[in-house]
């Protein structure tokens, strides 16, 4: 399945009933150099839109929201040691956490790649 996107500039990649979540390349470019990342611990229950992770640049701290409800199955601990990975490879190795979906129908509310590209155009 291809990636889905939120208006908060997160991407979601579904594999079975587990969604991998990251921030988009646009989001990392807006943040600038990432200097700190805090990812959620496995086992935590999150609702759609809840604060799930933290990403900080030199200038400011930002929340990463849970794009879907479910249970965290893994946080990307590698980011805590190497936060710059978010800038270098936001779409792949810079993923933040994996989430076991509580309600697959929530996926319908997310944008596909074309819709997200249009959304970014409107921001300019």
């Amino acid at each position, binding site marked *: 399945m291809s990636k889905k996107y939120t208006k908060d500039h997160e991407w979601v990649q579904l594999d079975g009933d587990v969604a991998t979540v990251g921030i988009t390349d646009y989001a990392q470019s807006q943040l*600038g150099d990432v200097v*700190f990342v805090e990812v959620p611990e496995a086992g935590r229950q999150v609702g759609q839109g809840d604060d799930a992770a933290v990403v900080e640049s030199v200038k400011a701290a930002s929340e990463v929201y849970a794009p879907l409800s479910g249970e965290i199955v893994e946080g990307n601990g590698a980011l805590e040691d190497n936060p710059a990975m978010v800038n270098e490879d936001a779409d792949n190795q810079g993923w933040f956490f994996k989430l076991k979906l509580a309600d697959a129908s929530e996926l319908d509310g997310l944008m596909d790649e074309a819709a997200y590209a249009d959304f970014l155009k409107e921001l300019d």
Partner: protein
Amino acid sequence: MEPQNPIKRTPLYDLHLELGGKIVPFAGYEMPVQYPLGVMGEHLHTRAKAGLFDVSHMGQAKLVANKAGEDAAALFEALVPGGIQTLQEGRMRYTQLTHETGGIRDDLMATRFGDTLWLVVNAACKDDDFMHISSALKEDATLEIADRALLALQGPAAGDVLAELMPASTDLIFMQAVWTSWSLPDGGESVDVLVSRCGYTGEDGFELSIAPEHAEILARTLLAHADVEPIGLGARDSLRLEAGLCLYGHDIDLTTSPAEADLLWSVPKRRRAEANFPGAETLNQHIEAGVAKKRVGILPEGRAPAREGTAIESLDGEPLGQITSGGFGPTLGGPLAMGYVPAAFSQPDTQVQLIVRGKALPARVVAMPFVPQNYRKG
């Protein structure tokens, strides 16, 4: 309703756009927060070579005594606790405009030229400052607000870069200033530039005051040097934080005295004894009886930055105070902060905890600056 003041631009606004600056509102101006190099790169470049900052939003003015032969520097001491009348020609000092209640209205730089005093104040405070100074000294002195651009060239290469353009700059050491003339590169006229060897980064460097119509050509000439990159407000903030320098409205304000703000180094004994500036009674009380709170450097022990507003607690969970500036120091390579704690907790190496997103994170009080200052002292 009063109309909102329209947002202002400095003479370098178009150049900021051309250089790819990301523009944000700051103190009533549209200012570049960063350029394509990014905050981290700009910060490190300034510490390694030289960075060019547009600080034209700051207020510049000349204080002139009304009576011939009177000294504006002496008159200005009525408003600040610094040693100003003792300034020698072309020397500058950091001081504060204090309030009757003991707090700080603004902090500023004052430079002596003859019997006049050149002042540089913060952008966000300049209208209030100028009104306050003019009205408080109206019987004795006149404040001439200067419509000039201000560029800061900061970093270890700043001296060499400026030496080529303005040779008079090579005679200056830290906190000295000189009016010099600069021949415009197109072979045209010569223009007056006030060169001050000071800054807000902890590095050697200069502030260059120039007529607004010549600011862009000066900026372009400096940027043409291989060692010079444009630097935005983001890196300006991380550089000054590493240098342990206060940001008005955050680390100092009307609720902090110069003693509480750990700025007594800028208040000579003579002024304490004379006690003839606003808030002198409170300041002397703070010096004699000790302060209830003091500005300190705080080093988080983990990787998480603690931002402004973060609660500082003792290890027992007793509230101590708040972080007033905090973030990540690119040269330090980790988080850093400053904030206020009770005097009993202000000694270096005192363990405290910072409440970040509900979690208590270990931190300790440290002496500032966080990164060694690199001034040209002579």
